[in-house]
């Protein structure tokens, strides 16, 4: 995932609550480089995106 602010690549393992800030499962991925809160797709949307990616790969 690319940060929407600084454009740097956020490592895949930087997951939800990566900032360790609130533990609120806020569906944000905080960029480790600039702190910007990037939206992290929920389960349903992620499933849809994965299906789309699979379709693209085929």
């Amino acid at each position, binding site marked *: 995932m690319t940060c*929407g*602010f*600084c*454009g*740097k*690549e956020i*490592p895949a*393992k*930087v997951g939800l609550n990566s*900032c360790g*800030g*609130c533990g609120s499962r*806020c*569906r*944000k991925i*905080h960029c*480790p*480089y*600039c*702190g*910007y*809160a990037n*939206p*992290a*797709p*929920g389960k349903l*949307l992620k499933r849809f*995106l994965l299906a789309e990616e699979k379709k693209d790969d085929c």
Partner: protein
Amino acid sequence: MTSHSSPPKIVLVGNPNVGKSVLFNVLTGSYTTVSNYPGTSVEVASGRCRIGGRAYEVLDTPGMYSLMPITEEERVARKILLTERPDVLLHVVDARNIERMLPMTLQLIEARQPVILVVNILDEAERLGMTFDLPRLAQNLGIPVVGAVMKRRQGLEELQQAITGFTSAPRALEVYANDLEADIRRLAEMLKADYPLGARATAILLMQRDQEVETLVRAEEGEGFPLIAPVLHDIKFNRRADLNLLISLERKRLTRKMLEGAFQQRDADHLMFSERLSRWAMNPFSGVPLLVLVLYFGLYQFVGNFGAGTLVDFLEGVLFENYINPAVVGFFNRITDIYWLRELLVGEYGLWTLGIRYAVALILPIVGTFFLVFSLLEDTGYFPRLAMLVDRLFKQIGLSGRAVIPIVLGFGCDTMATMVTRTLESARERIIATLLLALAIPCSAQLGVILGLLAVYPGALVVWMLVMVAVFLLIGYLSARVLPGENPVFYMEIPPLRLPQARNVLVKTLTRMQSYFLEILPLFLVASVILWAGKMSGILDLVVKGMTPLVRALGLPGEATAAFIFGFFRRDFGAAGLYDLQNRGLLSPVQLTVAAVTLTLFVPCIAQFLMMKKERGLRTSLGIFVFVSVLAFSVGWGLNRLLLLTGVLA
């Protein structure tokens, strides 16, 4: 190349997505293993290959942006450089972004690494009109440079020749600006041990407060460290404000020097449109009009007129008013005749009539349109340019361009933005940003409702905007004078401006809408229950009676009190209450303006207050709460008197 009993090591480094893994696969074929780097969860691929009849071990490191690590991946990549001591280090860069990536090459040379620069993706760069004189670049840098299109194996042969013919580490690079160079040399000369990155690069990392490097130096220097510590402390203290900025600027300068005669953008006089647009966005003379256009079309027209006007009118005025509400209210009235239960479900403050209707029919279309514009701008890369544009102005109010992140996010949701203030460098900046977010930054739903309401009276909208900007700047300016501390320095790499991708924008918008809706719906329902309980017990009447004189002092009707009480639960809840008042024809243009100003400045909602308490502590949060409340009513009162006195908006 040094002789070893084990095969010599080739290590691949570079930014993410520059084709490192492709090169790794091309070099190693199928002889690879992927495993976690010891003690971490970061995967590192290793393999073997034969070049010119000689066996090599090849390691592919995780993406890194500089030798100063921020993520675990970067930490592992640097650790590999420190511990593996590569015989050849392939620095892979994307030719299209060579200016942004070459500073790391300079760092690697500075760190005495045996670097070969691989300029990958040359074909696409050439398609963009870029031309390279790679022998000249090699001469300037003093290291071998190979051009490549690795996905087509183009340049592989040259790279293999460069690897087999590689002889030694690069020559020393050119120096930085005088005073900075003097500090680096002073510190480097004190480092006596043999460091894998060399004394110079180690000294720079020490100055940049790299904890791992400091621990290493402490261990390596042993009894000599107490002599180094005061010098290091002095340098760090004297350069506390601008060291990283200076180093970045020096590396940029050196990068430009290295690229002189080695890189050309065709039609340099006629820069690509995106490059020109990028410069316009950051130049105050063109950037401010561009910002006004973005605000006018993005916020006023799309969010205000379309989202809060057309969409809300349709959802609330047509769908809910004519079809859904009568059906739901009729249904509950049929199934129960218990008064308190009916009130709880479909009464004045009922779960359906207030909680769900506000969330679905009023707030959702507004935040949906807002997040669409927000995600679109975000995907173009406009925000970092906005940060550079407002940096000078923000310095006057004790902030820097970095504060654009929480301020811009605040227009989405102030609670989350308050949390993001932790990324600001000084405590002073964090307090000022928290105060300004609580005071003068309306969240998306509040902003949308207010824009929608005031759009009917353009004069009222202008007054509201002027008051908000004035309060933001004045309170920021005064805070910067009252709170002790130095002005922060802001510098960032500007990513390329790009065309927004429909899929990205859609995913970001839907994600934000889902997240927002799931957050507000329970709060709206809880607020409805509290208000219902207040109504049933008579407490709400007492609160309304208590607040009514205050609201009347602002020149507003007593009914507006409810909107202020709603606003305490959530800012957007309060704005929706204002929408109801306006729909009932209870507000004149002056009253509407005063109510909008006061409600925007009014106390942060419960969630924001809790976040403020968590981030800034109870004392500061209570101070901000009281200050904001008093200021909101004072400004509202003063504005009402002024508007009545001058006859503006009459």
